[in-house]
Every structure is written in structure tokens, then in C-alpha cells.
């Protein structure tokens, strides 16, 4: 038998193959069958992609359209600033949270070996020819990978595979920091922008004639910005490492807060370029900060005062009535938003503002959040100075991002509140929360989207009109909030009774018990579910295409296939769909891999 030959017994790879792929005749059959299917579909896909009928320039030429739709050219720097802010923050976090994990040179070569081996196998298995259907219906066989091109890739990759195979075992003591290695990989990707060439189209300066040689380095217009951003990221990586070494504790709080605020800041100020009128700042923002600053100060100052404590219930009811009044009065939006923040302060201050130190810190936090909130709302609610043909500065991938991030941001606290409300002992709150959850969940998302696009305006009081994107955002928050609520409720129910008792036994009040003991554990048990639902809402955001928003899917399926300038792309649907599937796959794949690592880190406390 071949199975018992020397190679399959003595060689470790041979033994792995023998034990895992051919352990019995049925598993050998399955291995062959699956292998055949994989190779068959792979060759089919490659044949499809390289078929001369495909016109991939329809994707590459429209890359900018895909990302930002009709964002004005002269404001492009704002798009780059937005990306740059995220990258800089990324660099800072990688440096600051660097776990110090290392990888040996052998380990790096092992990875490179795998990569080059996979490339060699893929190239070797790729089909040489494919069928093209001619106009008269006959089928012609066309060569898609010329022999010399195949060899040009295959030979070097085989040589590299062999080289790395032997280099894997080098016994060099040098260890490399994984974070730095990963940054280097990212740098190599950026560098590839300079030399990897893919077909695209460029126009001459008059904007009418297509420049004949269509092979340009990938993203020929973007490598300079990417390089600058990469350098910035590196710089902040080193700043982050420095802060870590200096052991600057405050950063451990500032970085997560910055991550939270970063998208809000980008969308409301950088990407938007708001038109801020000074008189509204003086007539609304500054009065709001002053009034709420003083009220907040009083709440913090007297939160543990004995004589005020007697009137706690009437005071709380008073604030509740006040907030309803503020919401009904035709006040500027900033007052209403800050009122919500004030209610939050009212809830937390009895738990925190009990010592002089606690009061001081809470007051600082209060003032800072007042300024941040006012600043963000000022940007978000002002008109934009940018003019676009579609009337909205969001479109394509930037719209997808906007929906995904705000959907997550808003639905998370909403879901938590609904879940806690549904498990509350107060019947009114419980019934309201249960009602919201059940109604929202029992109607499909698409139906809600139509509701948002046509009916929501009917329900709103006269004169109140929101832009369609904002209506969709509110709706998405409720929709995913209702689902989040049920997941979180499941998590809450999984917490054993002993945890409540232990929290009670050390004298915690109900507020502390819920937010310090129960909720953190509940959230941890449902992270996989939450990640799944964030990914779902990321993908589902493409449904907004059906109510007329230009998201990335609509651009791919109806805008580009209708283009006839500068080149005719009419009917180029397939290319767009292939590209979009790949695009969504990359994002969700990276996201779920990241969250798996995150889960492992959090799982430390569990047995």
C-alpha cells in the first residue's frame, strides 16, 4: 500500500496527510471529492475574472465614485483627513497597547513560506484558456494566461517557497515585536501602490481623450496621500510607545474615548465642513453651556446634602417634568440634547459625588462633556458649505460607514436601556419597553425603511422635517436597538443569582449592582452575538438603496452600469457585483477576526 510507504510514515508532513486526509477509504474519497470541487470552482472563477469580456476598468475607474460618490474634488483633503485621523489613532493605540508579543525570524519565514506556497499552487492550478461566446453564438477558446506570464510568476514563487522552507529553521535568536512586524506589512502594502500595475483609465488634461496606455500603477492618484498617512501613523505609533514606557495612565482612558468620539467628530466637522454662524453660537450654544453648567454644578454640589435628600423624589420628578417641557417647547436642538445629558448626570451623581474629590472630578467631566456635546451638535446640525450634485455629501462607502457606525452607536445604549426596562420591576416601564421591542422586531427592516422614507414625515409634528438620512439613522437605531435588547436580555438571564446576592451582600446599591457587576458579565457572554449583529447591520445598510439613498450597492448596480462617459460602461453589472462581494467580504472578515482576538482576551476571566 502507498499509505504505508516510507514517506507517509517518517516525514511529519506525510504523516499529517495520512492521518488527516486519508485516514480511511471513505475519508480519502471525501478528500478527493472536495479537492476536485475546490479546484473546479477556483478555475471557473479565474476564467470568469480574466475573461476578455470582463471590463474591470469599470471598477477601477469608478473607485472614487464607490468611496465618496459626488464629494467635491476641491474638498478631497477632508476625506484624507478623516482617514488620517483614524489611522493616526490606530497608530497611537497600537503603540500604547503593544502587548510586547514577539515573533522569531523563523516564524516570519514560516508565514512567508505559506504565502508563497499558496501563490505557487494557485498559479499552477489556474486555467490557461477560457470560453468566450461570440456574437453569432459560437464559442471561441481564448488564452487568458500566456505560458510565459505563468512562468514569470510561477518560477520565482517556487524558488521563494523553497528558500523560505529552508529558512524556516534558521536558529537566529532575534525576536521581532509583532506590532512592528504588522506595521511593516502594512507599509509593504502601501509601497505596492507604487509598482503594482492594474488597468485603469485616465483622461488627458482636457478631460475628453482617453490616454492610450491604460496600465498605470494602482491608485496612481492616491499613493502620495497614503504615504503621508502611513508616515503619520508610524509617527504616532512611536509616540504611543513612548507614552506606554513613560507609563502615562490617563492615556488608557483617553484613547478609548477618542475612538468613541473620532467618527462623530469626523462626520460632524471634518467630512461635513459645517457653515457655523456666529450669532447662533452666541444665542444658543453659549447660553446652553452656561445654564446647564450651573444646573449641573448645583446637582453635583447638593447630591449628598442631608436636607436636600429629603426632597429627592419631588426633585427627580421635577427634573422629569422639566425635560418633557424642554422637549415640547420649540427650543433649539442643543437644549434638548443637553437635557438628556443632564438626566444622566442626575442618575449617576448620587453614586459618584459623595466625596470632595469625587465631586471635583465629576464636575470636570460634566463641563468637558458639555463642551464636547455642544461642539459636535453644532457641527452636525449646521448646514454644510459643500455643494454636491446629489444634494448629500454622503454617498457610496462613506454612507455605508455612516449608517454602520451610527447604527451601532445609537442602538447599543438604546438596546441596553430597553433590555433593562424589560426586566424592570416597574410594570409601566416594562410594558412600554416590551411593546417597543416586539413591535419593532415583528416588522421587516425593508418595511421600516419605506416607513421612514414616506410615512415618518406624516407622523412628525408640522414643521419638523428631517433629512432622509437622519430619518434612516433614527430608524436603524431603533431596529437594531430592539434586537440588541433581546440579546442583552438573554445575557442578563444567564447571570447566576449568586452574583446578585454577592453584590447585595457587600452593600452595593441597585445602580452599582447593575452597572458594575451584572451588565459587564452579561455583555461579555453575548459578544459573539453582538459582533454577528454588527456585521449584519453593516451589510444590511445596503438595503437603503431601495429608498433612494446612494449607497455603495446602488452605485454598483445602477449608477455605473448606466455610465457612457468617458467610456461606455453600460450593462457592466457582473464586474460590480464581483467587486462588491469581495469588498464586503474583506471588511467583515477582518472585523470578525479582530473580534475573535478581543473575545479571547476578555475570556481570560472565565474558566
Amino acid at each position: 500500500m502507498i499509505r504505508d510507504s516510507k514517506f507517509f510514515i517518517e516525514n511529519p508532513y506525510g504523516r499529517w496527510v495520512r492521518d488527516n486526509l486519508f485516514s480511511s477509504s471513505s475519508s480519502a474519497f471525501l478528500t478527493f471529492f472536495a479537492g476536485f470541487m475546490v479546484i473546479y470552482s477556483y478555475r471557473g472563477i479565474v476564467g470568469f475574472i480574466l475573461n476578455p469580456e470582463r471590463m474591470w476598468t469599470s471598477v477601477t475607474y469608478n473607485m472614487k465614485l464607490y468611496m465618496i460618490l459626488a464629494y467635491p474634488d476641491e474638498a478631497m483633503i477632508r476625506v484624507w483627513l478623516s482617514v488620517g485621523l483614524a489611522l493616526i489613532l490606530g497608530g497611537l493605540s497600537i503603540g500604547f497597547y503593544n502587548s510586547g508579543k514577539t515573533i522569531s525570524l523563523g516564524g516570519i519565514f514560516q508565514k512567508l513560506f505559506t504565502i508563497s506556497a499558496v501563490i505557487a499552487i494557485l498559479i499552477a492550478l489556474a486555467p490557461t484558456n477560457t470560453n468566450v461566446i461570440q456574437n453569432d453564438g459560437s464559442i471561441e477558446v481564448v488564452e487568458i494566461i500566456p505560458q510565459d506570464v505563468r512562468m514569470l510568476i510561477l518560477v520565482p514563487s517556487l524558488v521563494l517557497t523553497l528558500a523560505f522552507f529552508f529558512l524556516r529553521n534558521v536558529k537566529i535568536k532575534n525576536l521581532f515585536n509583532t506590532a512592528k512586524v504588522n506595521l511593516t506589512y502594512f507599509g509593504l502594502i502601501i509601497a505596492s501602490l507604487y509598482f503594482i500595475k492594474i488597468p485603469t483609465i485616465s483622461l488627458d488634461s482636457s478631460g475628453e481623450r482617453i490616454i492610450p496606455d491604460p496600465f498605470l500603477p494602482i491608485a496612481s492618484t492616491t499613493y502620495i496621500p497614503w504615504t503621508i498617512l502611513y508616515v503619520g501613523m508610524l509617527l504616532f505609533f512611536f509616540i504611543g510607545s513612548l507614552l506606554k514606557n513613560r507609563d502615562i495612565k490617563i492615556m488608557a482612558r483617553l484613547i478609548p474615548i477618542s475612538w468613541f468620539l473620532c467618527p462623530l467628530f469626523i462626520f460632524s466637522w471634518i467630512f461635513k465642513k459645517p457653515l457655523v454662524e456666529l450669532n447662533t453660537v452666541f444665542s444658543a450654544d453659549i447660553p446652553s453651556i452656561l445654564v446647564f453648567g450651573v444646573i449641573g454644578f448645583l446637582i453635583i454640589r447638593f447630591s449628598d446634602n442631608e436636607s436636600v435628600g429629603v426632597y429627592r423624589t419631588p426633585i427627580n420628578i421635577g427634573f422629569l417634568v422639566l425635560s418633557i417641557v424642554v422637549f415640547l417647547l420649540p427650543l433649539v436642538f442643543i437644549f434638548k440634547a443637553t437635557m438628556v445629558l443632564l438626566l444622566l448626570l442626575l442618575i449617576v451623581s448620587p453614586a459618584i459625588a459623595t466625596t470632595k474629590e469625587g465631586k471635583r472630578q465629576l464636575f470636570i467631566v460634566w463641563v468637558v462633556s458639555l463642551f464636547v456635546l455642544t461642539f459636535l451638535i453644532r457641527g452636525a446640525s449646521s448646514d454644510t458649505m459643500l455643494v454636491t450634485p446629489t444634494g448629500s455629501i454622503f454617498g457610496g462607502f462613506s454612507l455605508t460607514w455612516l449608517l454602520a457606525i451610527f447604527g451601532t452607536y445609537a442602538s447599543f445604549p438604546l438596546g441596553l436601556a430597553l433590555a433593562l426596562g424589560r426586566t424592570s420591576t416597574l410594570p409601566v416601564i416594562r410594558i412600554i419597553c416590551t411593546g417597543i421591542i416586539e413591535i419593532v422586531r415583528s416588522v421587516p427592516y425593508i418595511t421600516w425603511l419605506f416607513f421612514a422614507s414616506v410615512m415618518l414625515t406624516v407622523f412628525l409634528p408640522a414643521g419638523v422635517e428631517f433629512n432622509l438620512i437622519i430619518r434612516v439613522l433614527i430608524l436603524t437605531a431603533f431596529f437594531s436597538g430592539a434586537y440588541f435588547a433581546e440579546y442583552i436580555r438573554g445575557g442578563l438571564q444567564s447571570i447566576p443569582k449568586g452574583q446578585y446576592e454577592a453584590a447585595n451582600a457587600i452593600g452595593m446599591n441597585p445602580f452599582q449592582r447593575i452597572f458594575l457587576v451584572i451588565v459587564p458579565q452579561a455583555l461579555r457572554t453575548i459578544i459573539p452575538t453582538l459582533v454577528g449583529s454588527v456585521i449584519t447591520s453593516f451589510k444590511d445598510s445596503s438595503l437603503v438603496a431601495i429608498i433612494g439613498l446612494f449607497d455603495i450597492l446602488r452605485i454598483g448596480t445602477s449608477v455605473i452600469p448606466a455610465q457612457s462617459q468617458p467610456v461606455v460602461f453600460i450593462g457592466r453589472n457582473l464586474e460590480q457585483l464581483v467587486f462588491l462581494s469581495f469588498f464586503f467580504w474583506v471588511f467583515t472578515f477582518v472585523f470578525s477576526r479582530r473580534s475573535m482576538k478581543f473575545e479571547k482576551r476578555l475570556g481570560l476571566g472565565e474558566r
Partner: protein
Amino acid sequence: MSIIKTVDVKKWFGDFQALKGISMEVAEGEVLVICGPSGSGKSTFIRCINRLEQHQEGEIVVDGIELTNDLKNIEAIRSEVGMVFQSFNLFPHLTVMQNITLAPIWVRKKSRSESEEKAMELLERVGIPEQAQKFPGQLSGGQQQRVAIARALAMEPKIMLFDEPTSALDPEMIKEVLDAMKELAESGMTMIVVTHEMGFAKEVADRVMLFDEGLMVEENTPNEFFDNPKNDRTKLFLSQIL
């Protein structure tokens, strides 16, 4: 002056009466051991003392405060009374250090550094200072129970309640927990211990009580309790357990 006083405490779970009138007193610094067969109401009784259960009739006064439905009273009493559970009930998402400092920081409003210093002292006292940065899931049962003791002590309670602290433990770990409790008793802490560890009762207790079917059937000094029990029920119980 007694620090705990109960008068004719009765407690029903639906139709079932778990406590049928318990009157007792515990003096400051006293160590009281409660034993009795399963289902006799021992846990229910000590859980009434920090109001994890509510009694329906009778009166419980702890450190001069009567237990009523007033929330302020309950929180005040709970921070004076520490409790150690059979199943440890540590917070699995927090490290040992965070488990211990959580209540001092949030309930007692102490500074973090002060609480951490105190927590290290307590961990040394129960013999596991080196485990401070681990998570509960990474510790053995005996170590977890000692963390639970340290967590209760971090609130600087006047009274400690123990509900069968060793019965979920493997035999080789029981001793380390009992040693920590012994040390605590010697330091003058008022303790009520529900346990079947008769060796511990003989050696440490000032008084031993036997519960049966919701009643306290015997109350005695350890010597008398083991060598010369007054009640037939006690004789039967001892013959079964020893």
C-alpha cells in the same frame, strides 16, 4: 451588649414555613456555630440577618438598627455585615484585586490607592498575596474562598456570616479556609458560621446551635454540645455526623 438580636423570627416560602420562631442573641466578638440537618433553615436564617431574605414576622436588630423595608437601613447594615457563600460568588470578570477593592471604592468611597493597599494586607492575611492580578477562574476552590473572605473583610465589617464556606471544597483545601477563619475569630471578629466541620466548632466556637425543621432545638457551649447534649435530636444528629 448584644450586637445581633432576633425575636421570634418567622419566615414562609409560599405555604412552607422555613423558620418557625427563632429568638437568639450574639454578643460582640462571639463566634457562633450553627449546625443541623439539610433543609432545617440554617441558610434562610443567616440570610435574614443581612436581608438577602425577608422575614415576615418577628424582629431582627443588627448593631442597633432594626431590619425593615427601608432601603437606607438595608444598605447600611449590609456594609456592616460581611457574608461568605458556599459557592464563593466571586465576580468572574474582575481580577482578585478588583474583586476586593470594588466595594471599598464604590460603597465606602475610598481612594483606589488606599483600597489597594488594604486589599494587599488582606490577601496576605488569608495567605495568597501572589494571586492579586489573577482572575477567579484561574484559582483553586480554596483560594477562591479565601478571596471571598478577603472581599467581605475589605468593607471592614463588624460581623461576618459564613454559609457552609467549606462544603464545596475538596478535603485538602478545607484546612486552608478554616485556618483563615480561625485567625479571624482570634482577632475578635463577631462571626456566625453555618458548618458541618465539627472540629472547627469544638476548637473555635463560643457557642453552638442546632437547627431542626425551622426551630432552634439546642443552644450550648461546644463542650456541653458535643459531650453532654440536652436534646435527643442533637444526639441523633451527632451520631449521624461524627
